[in-house]
């Protein structure tokens, strides 16, 4: 094998980072969910059988007292910032892959600390100091190996530290599943599936093929897979500087004290950059984001993503970096690093670009221009008005109209894959009101009055009998004559639990003006739930 040997890399992996960042104690069962699936869980939850990728309901079935948290990448990045800073003091050229995962070139620091082993131990200790939770149960993992991917796999397969000897990466990987290539983001899940279907299940099987065959059959990703498998992945930690012409910056005329305008500018720069690189047929895989304040303080981070940083991904990383730097309330000991003045400069410098192997726009499915535009508008609106103000529906299920769908921030879900979010399973939901659904559903039920012909409040007995025919409905202070009604339809929810039990009866009414409403009575009080507008 004539290929050059890979450069040695160290990967620091904080397992289950989202739950660590959420500040949950390891002995508490808790899990972080994204798009209704478990993405991280505490050791206590793992012990109770909560598995990654499980649906929320399945996880709650395994562990009813499970604390359900939603994924918050911003907060994760913010909590990770002190660790990045501490590691950056130890060694230069730290690359953040995602919150909870960073890698660095081993050569310099390893020589300084007297070998790969001591360096790895030092890193575990250092990360443990900054995130005590992460140290429990071997949560911090460090791997050293030839090549970035091999080091990431070494870190993630075993707790503690794992040092693969120089030249031993191919042997280390030989029996491992090629599915790791998708997990480390080097090649797409589709290609991994194809490998598996073709019988290439392990790295050893990939390594046994001729690189030319892989290249001709699968293109550059195939060759990359072969290089990783044989430990000849020649991608360096410091690539030859791609060309400074890609670098773009924006000096602010007036110092900016707010994150919003910086994100806006970042969005524009990122679009320009991604556009320029795109016309050159390239994609940025490693990017240096530098932010400077009026007082000369400077935050510089290198971000890495194996399959390329899109414009949206660049903006996201600028936002992570900015919120980690400005809102340093969790950093603790390093007060001095927080910026003391407004931001005057933002610079994006791609430090590694590669040829964009390209995702073709699908003929069926895939991304249309409308999807791309909408995703962009969603990102822009989220940056402008806050993520909580731009939301998409998620199916929850329930018998009352406002319980059936929940609105979740659009940035927290994968807009391309709505299956998990909106999949409602087969069959009707038992006990829900029949007929067409109301077009206006009040977020919070509004108090109302339902009166009979004598002006008395209508009551519903425990057996579901109504005291008298409704005659007048008072909504928002306006009395409306009832011309038609049906019900009451009782809902007896969770009668087995003294705390969660709920008894509600629903009533449809039609008023003289032709408007129809869905009302509910609970503990003798009437509410309007929805209007059929």
């Amino acid at each position: 094998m004539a290929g050059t040997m890979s450069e040695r890399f160290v990967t620091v992996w904080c397992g289950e980072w989202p739950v660590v960042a959420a500040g949950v104690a390891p002995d508490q069962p808790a899990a972080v969910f994204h798009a209704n699936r478990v993405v991280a869980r505490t050791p206590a939850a793992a012990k109770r059988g909560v598995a990654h990728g499980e649906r929320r309901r399945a996880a709650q079935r395994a562990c009813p007292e499970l604390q359900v948290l939603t994924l918050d990448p911003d907060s994760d990045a913010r909590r990770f910032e002190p660790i990045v800073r501490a590691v950056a003091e130890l060694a230069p050229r730290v690359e953040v892959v995602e919150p909870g995962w960073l890698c660095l070139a081993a050569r310099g620091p390893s020589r300084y600390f007297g070998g790969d082993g001591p360096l790895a131990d030092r890193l575990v200790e250092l990360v443990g100091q900054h995130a005590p939770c992460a140290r429990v149960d071997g949560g911090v993992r460090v791997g050293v190996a030839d090549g970035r991917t091999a080091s990431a796999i070494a870190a993630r397969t075993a707790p503690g530290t794992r040092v693969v000897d120089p030249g031993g990466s191919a042997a280390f990987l030989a029996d491992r599943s090629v599915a790791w290539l998708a997990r480390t983001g080097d090649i797409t899940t589709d290609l991994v599936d194809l490998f598996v279907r073709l019988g290439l299940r392990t790295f050893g099987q990939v390594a046994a093929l001729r690189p030319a065959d892989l290249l001709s059959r699968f293109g550059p990703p195939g060759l990359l897979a072969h290089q990783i498998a044989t430990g000849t992945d020649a991608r360096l930690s410091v690539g030859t500087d791609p060309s400074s012409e890609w670098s773009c910056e924006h000096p602010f005329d007036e110092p900016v004290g707010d994150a919003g305008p910086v994100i806006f500018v970042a969005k524009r720069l990122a679009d320009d950059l991604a556009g320029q690189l795109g016309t050159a047929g390239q994609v940025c895989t490693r990017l240096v984001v530098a932010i400077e304040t009026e007082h000369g303080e400077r935050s510089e981070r290198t971000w890495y993503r194996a399959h390329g940083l899109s414009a949206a991904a660049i903006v996201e990383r600028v936002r992570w970096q900015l919120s980690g730097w400005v809102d340093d309330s969790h950093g603790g000991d390093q007060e001095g690093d927080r910026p003391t003045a407004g931001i005057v400069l933002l610079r994006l410098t791609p430090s590694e670009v590669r040829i964009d192997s390209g995702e073709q726009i699908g003929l069926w499915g895939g991304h249309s221009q409308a999807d791309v535009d909408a995703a962009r508008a969603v990102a822009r609106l989220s940056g402008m008005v806050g993520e909580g103000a731009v939301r998409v529906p998620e199916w929850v299920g329930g018998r009352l109209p406002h319980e059936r769908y929940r609105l979740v921030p659009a940035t927290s879900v994968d807009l391309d894959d709505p299956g998990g979010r909106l999949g409602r399973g087969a069959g009707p939901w038992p006990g829900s009101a029949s007929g067409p659904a109301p077009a206006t559903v009040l977020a919070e039920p509004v108090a109302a009055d339902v009166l009979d012909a004598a002006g008395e409040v209508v009551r519903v007995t425990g057996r579901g009998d109504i005291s008298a025919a409704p005659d007048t409905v008072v909504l928002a202070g306006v009395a409306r004559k009832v011309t038609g009604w049906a019900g009451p339809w009782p809902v007896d929810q969770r009668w087995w639990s003294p705390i969660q039990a709920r008894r509600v009866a629903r009533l449809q009414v039609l008023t003289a003006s032709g408007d129809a409403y869905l009302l509910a009575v609970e503990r003798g009080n009437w509410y309007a739930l929805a209007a059929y507008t």
Partner: protein
Amino acid sequence: MNRAALAVHTLAELAPARDRCLPVHPLLAGLFPEGGLRRGHVVACTGSAATSLALVLTTQAAAAGAWVAAVGLPELGIEAAAELGVPIERLVLVAPGNSPAQWAERVAAAADGFELVLTAPPRGAERAGRQVRQRVQARGTVLVTVGAAATFGSDVELTTAGCAWEGLGTGHGCLLRRRLTVTSSGRRVPRPRTTALWLPGPHGQVVTTDATTETRPNHGRDDV
């Protein structure tokens, strides 16, 4: 230079007639002079069934891949939208903000990326509304307003009237379907046109009145 700028105000005017319009539900197409939702137009839905009507307007285009933003409609019934045929995987809801200026900013931002924007203009939004209108025209987005007629003017106004629910008795049955008429008027509609519909029909979707007149609604219990 100047002449070129004068000749073509917007991209929408360059496009051939079919591309100038977003498709609309066949039962509603007759209400529009061009048989579809003209890009850059503001369509106002008023009357007591305005929300359902606005949702139905989006169904055809959204089914063809367009995304729908609902700005300032926090009470939109998602399930009703799904029943009427809106692909809710392409529906995004945006909070209205606290002032007309914020509302306008958000609608304008939504108009940049979404082909259809549903909104309920807040009070006092005349000035902000005019800016929104310009943006919508420039981007070729269709803006559908719900509720009180847009104070900043609309190109097409659709009014629902004569709403009559069926299926609900006194103490029995349940709401099944609603008969109503939709009338289009406004400065882009030379002659007002009216159509009668079941909105919603028995299963939530919109149906023409002819198709369903034979099937008598079930009032809970049949006569003996």
